[in-house]
């Protein structure tokens, strides 16, 4: 800085400034102080300027420390914010993963249910088939036996009344067998219908 830049304060101006300082505790401050100079022969003027500069620097140092503190806190908040964002990103990714897992589990559960239902139905059909087969065998067996017995009785017996009795008995027996067979088939169909209704119309 050259000497030409200096702003020289006259003694009267310094006196007024000193008065303001003593009455109101107000001093010159800011960048302009760097240009200020006073008459070095006046110790009071030199003292005032030194004090003004000291106070200005003290205020600036205080402000600097405060601003640094605010900046530090801002950086900490920024860091915490970034950490939170990262954590939220991780949580979102985890949530998506969990949803996928849930969906896969539900699909697997559905498959297992279907398989179980199929196995149950298969068992049910096999059971029905066995019952029907056994019942029909018994009915056909009884039918065949009675028919053979009637045929034998028809050829062996000479009494027409006995033949008529045997004939009506045979037809009654076949009627009963036929009724029973329809009853078995009807019962089985009823059970099947009832189980279908219990599982719902879609199944």
């Amino acid at each position, binding site marked *: *800085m050259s000497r030409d*830049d200096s702003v020289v304060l006259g003694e009267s101006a310094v006196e007024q400034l000193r008065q303001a300082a003593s009455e109101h505790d107000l001093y010159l401050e800011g*960048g302009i102080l*760097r*240009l200020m100079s006073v008459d070095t022969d006046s110790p009071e003027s030199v003292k005032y300027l030194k004090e003004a500069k000291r106070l*200005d*620097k003290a205020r*600036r*140092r205080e*402000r*600097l420390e405060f*601003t*640094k503190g*605010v*900046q*530090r806190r*801002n950086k900490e908040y920024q860091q915490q914010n970034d950490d939170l964002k990262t954590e939220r990103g991780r949580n979102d990714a985890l949530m998506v993963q969990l949803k996928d897992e849930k969906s896969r589990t539900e699909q697997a559960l559905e498959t297992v249910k279907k398989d179980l239902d199929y196995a149950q139905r298969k068992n049910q059909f096999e059971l029905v088939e066995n019952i029907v087969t056994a019942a029909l065998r018994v009915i056909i067996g009884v039918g065949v036996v009675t028919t053979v017995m009637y045929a034998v009785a028809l050829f062996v017996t000479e009494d027409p009344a006995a033949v008529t009795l045997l004939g009506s008995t045979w037809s009654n027996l076949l009627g009963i067998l036929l009724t029973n067979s329809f009853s078995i088939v009807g019962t089985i169909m009823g059970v099947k219908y009832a189980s279908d209704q219990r599982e719902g119309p879609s199944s």
Partner: protein
Amino acid sequence: MIRCILLVDDERMFHWIFEDACSILDISLTLKSIDSADEADRLFADWKGDSTGRPECVFVDLNLVGSTYNGIELVRRINKIHGNGVVIGIISSSTDPAEIEKAKQVGAQFWIVKSDELEPRLEAFHARYDGYVDRSEPFRVFA
């Protein structure tokens, strides 16, 4: 004392810190702070015609959010396009050697690391300032 410093930094709070630090250390007579590389570019273009207010020394932040280009490109433009008449360097919290090398390549004369310990670094820089003006001082990282 440096007659005029220009600080280009997008962080307004750092303007206050830098201004107070420079003031406490009596580094500069005047200090102008701006927050964009575009504005700095425009100012240097204007100073080509009229050098009134042209700074002696320029501190440029590395990352200038919201500007067309970053600090290194701004240093390059000031040195190569607007004329190499100022002491210029980077002031950044980064210590990335690749970035420091890039800054050196485009003509930055110093790299000051931003931190809580800014004042001693500025003081060290100021002590070497005359060497930067006559280009005798080598590139240095103040960390």
